[in-house]
């Protein structure tokens, strides 16, 4: 199966860890322009850098509070947001691991390969295999780099319709075609008979609601759920179609690429972030998982100033999510700004790019797929969570765009290989004798 370019591209832009933007308060915002967290139809596809954007809202808070509380406030959005990211990452990994362990389709090696990994891995010769996996990695990473650069160029020249169409196409494929495949395999595994009309109905509803939630308006939780599901589907595709050794080398290479692309001044992802910030444009929800529940219910209604004072605490607000406000509501954005001033304690969430979800899940899924050892899977899971925690800590300290992949993937890879080769024989011997440590 040759996967289309669109979904290949869509995942690489999804590597990002971004502090969500709250409505900007221009009076406080001295240093830079925080993009309004409005999502517009035309600017949907903001290529997300692997990074955490500057927390302008946090800086604003600092300006408005006494000095002694500065440090406290800047770090105050720490623990809760770590958990708000732990939960979706865990859910995505759980879905992937559960599928890998139960549906054998995703662990069967097929002769088909992605066009991005053209070199076949020959299991007989170690040197050849290693060489081919490196070559595959080079091909894959160059494809990603080229796509990202194309995207930067498109974005710079404001070809929003093109980007938008590309993004719609890729989500269409994920939501309809891949989920159809997934459902088919699940039915095969559990020997469930299903007629086509019912199937069409299910897939149609699932897909259409997904498209609406992700690209337009929808309840926040539903949007988050759909983003988790499409990340899991994407990760499963990678687990199936990437050859064994290539997958590990690609994981390592992409975290290095992530590091370079986000932190280097001329890195494509960094340029994208900066361009988007200059234009005050928000990040596309289709590429970013947002944990923020920022909006006040009364915001859309300018005739109701009282509701603007309402303290908006997070979950359960079926609000028009970020990706949704249309750009012509600039006035609405203005209203939003002022209502934001009144509620400085609104929840500023953190955003994590979908690419991060995908690659975390690929790592854990591959750990679950190779060998029947659950200890390895668990170790990789803990390692990735700790990496994410450290990355968020760094975000809280540095307050700039940070790549979310390197630390977690490094920990994950280290723990995978060491647990698989060192801990597994040890624990197996202990279990055989029933010794406990």
């Amino acid at each position, binding site marked *: 199966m040759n996967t289309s370019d669109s979904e290949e591209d869509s995942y690489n832009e999804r590597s990002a860890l971004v502090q969500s933007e709250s409505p900007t308060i221009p009076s406080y915002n001295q240093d830079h322009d925080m993009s309004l967290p409005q999502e517009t139809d035309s600017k949907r596809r903001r290529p997300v850098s692997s990074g955490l954007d500057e927390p302008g809202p946090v800086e604003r808070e600092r300006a408005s509070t006494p000095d002694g509380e500065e*440090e*406290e406030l800047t*770090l*105050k959005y*720490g*623990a*809760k947001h*770590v*958990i708000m990211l*732990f939960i979706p990452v865990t859910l995505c990994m759980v879905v992937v691991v559960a599928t890998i362990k139960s549906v054998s389709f995703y662990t069967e090696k097929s002769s088909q390969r992605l066009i991005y990994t053209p070199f076949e891995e020959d299991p007989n010769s170690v040197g050849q295999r290693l060489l081919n996996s490196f070559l595959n990695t080079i091909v894959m990473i160059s494809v990603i780099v080229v796509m990202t650069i194309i995207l930067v160029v498109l974005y710079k020249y404001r070809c929003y319709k093109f980007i938008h169409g590309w993004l719609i196409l890729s989500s269409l494929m994920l939501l309809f075609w891949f989920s159809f495949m997934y459902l088919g395999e699940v039915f095969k595994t559990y020997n469930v008979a299903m007629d086509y009309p019912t199937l069409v109905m299910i897939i149609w509803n699932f897909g259409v609601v997904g498209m609406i939630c992700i690209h337009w308006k929808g309840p926040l939780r539903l949007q988050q759920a759909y983003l988790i599901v499409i990340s899991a589907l994407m990760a499963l595709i990678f687990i199936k179609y990437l050859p064994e050794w290539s997958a590990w080398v690609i994981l390592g290479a992409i975290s290095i690429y992530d590091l370079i692309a986000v932190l280097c001044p001329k890195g494509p992802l960094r340029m994208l972030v900066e361009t988007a910030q200059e234009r005050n444009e928000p990040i596309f929800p289709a590429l970013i998982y947002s944990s923020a529940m920022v909006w006040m219910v009364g915001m859309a209604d300018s005739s109701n100033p009282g509701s603007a004072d309402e303290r908006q605490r997070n979950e359960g607000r079926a609000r028009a999510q970020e990706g949704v406000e249309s750009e012509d509501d600039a006035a609405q954005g203005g209203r939003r700004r002022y209502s934001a001033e009144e509620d400085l*304690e609104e929840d500023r969430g953190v955003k994590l790019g979908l690419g991060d979800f995908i690659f975390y899940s690929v790592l854990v899924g591959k750990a679950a797929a190779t060998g*029947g*050892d*659950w*200890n390895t899977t*668990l*170790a990789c899971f*803990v*390692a990735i*969570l*700790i990496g994410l*925690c450290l990355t968020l800590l760094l975000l*809280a300290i540095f307050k700039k765009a940070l790549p979310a992949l390197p630390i977690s993937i490094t920990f994950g890879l280290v*723990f995978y290989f*060491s*647990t698989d*080769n*060192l*801990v597994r*024989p*040890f*624990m*197996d*011997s*202990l*279990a055989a*004798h*029933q*010794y*406990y*440590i």
Partner: protein
Amino acid sequence: MTLAVFFGCAFIAFGPSFALFVFTIAKDPLRVIILIAGAFFWLLSLLLSSLVWFIAIKASNSQDLTLQRGLLIFGVFFSVLLQEVFRFAYYRLLRKATEGLAAISDDDGSAISVRQMAYVAGLGFGIMSGAFSMINILSDSLGPGTVGIFGDSQYYFITAALMTLALTLLHTFWGVVFFEGCEKSRWWVIAAVVSLHLLVAGLSLLNPLYEGSLPPVYVITLATGVWAFFSSGGSLHSLSALCTLCGFESRASRTMTEVPLSKTPNPQPLPGRRSMWLPTAPGVCSRQES
């Protein structure tokens, strides 16, 4: 070898720790982070000890079974020592980060005290230790098979689950006691914890003579639990107050006297570990300096 065995053993091994997690840890994000970091530290200690064992295995004659067994026993004891070293290292890390943790905790939640961190860290160690011991066994129990077909004990799964439960609880208690000992610089406490852990590991070497390993381990678990209870400020009075109604208000009002370490030099003793998780009535949460 059925679902019954699977669920039974899973609930035996992980039931209490899961309940502890749900009732005491899940609501507070900071505790969740400390729990996972504790699990990570245990994992690191296991990694290093497996590395040492692996090197020893590779350097030795793989045909000599007694030697292999001896190396495994050495691996067990070395791993125990390393786990305690990493527990101490985690204690140091948490102490260093106390102010930082106070800062990143939610504004509406209390900053975490060393006693709570001790409990959470211990539970993190326990959960990870239990998971690593038990999960592979659980997944094997789902599949077809006959237990002990080659002459081994038939009670493998249930004893594994019981042992895992004991170890999880022990790690929790040891965490509390250990951190308390480090706080008060009572080094005999640390030595006691280390030797208890070595004792428990040594008792497990008696398997499959389960009479020799399980009852003593449970006795040790109970004793350590009592020790942890009194070490973290519990008393017989608070136990009786637990059961009476008039104890409820005093318990609720005293729950929040656990002030963070950065604010006062002498934290109020908690009226028993149990009160940490008791839900306080809204409006009753107040910091009382007494």
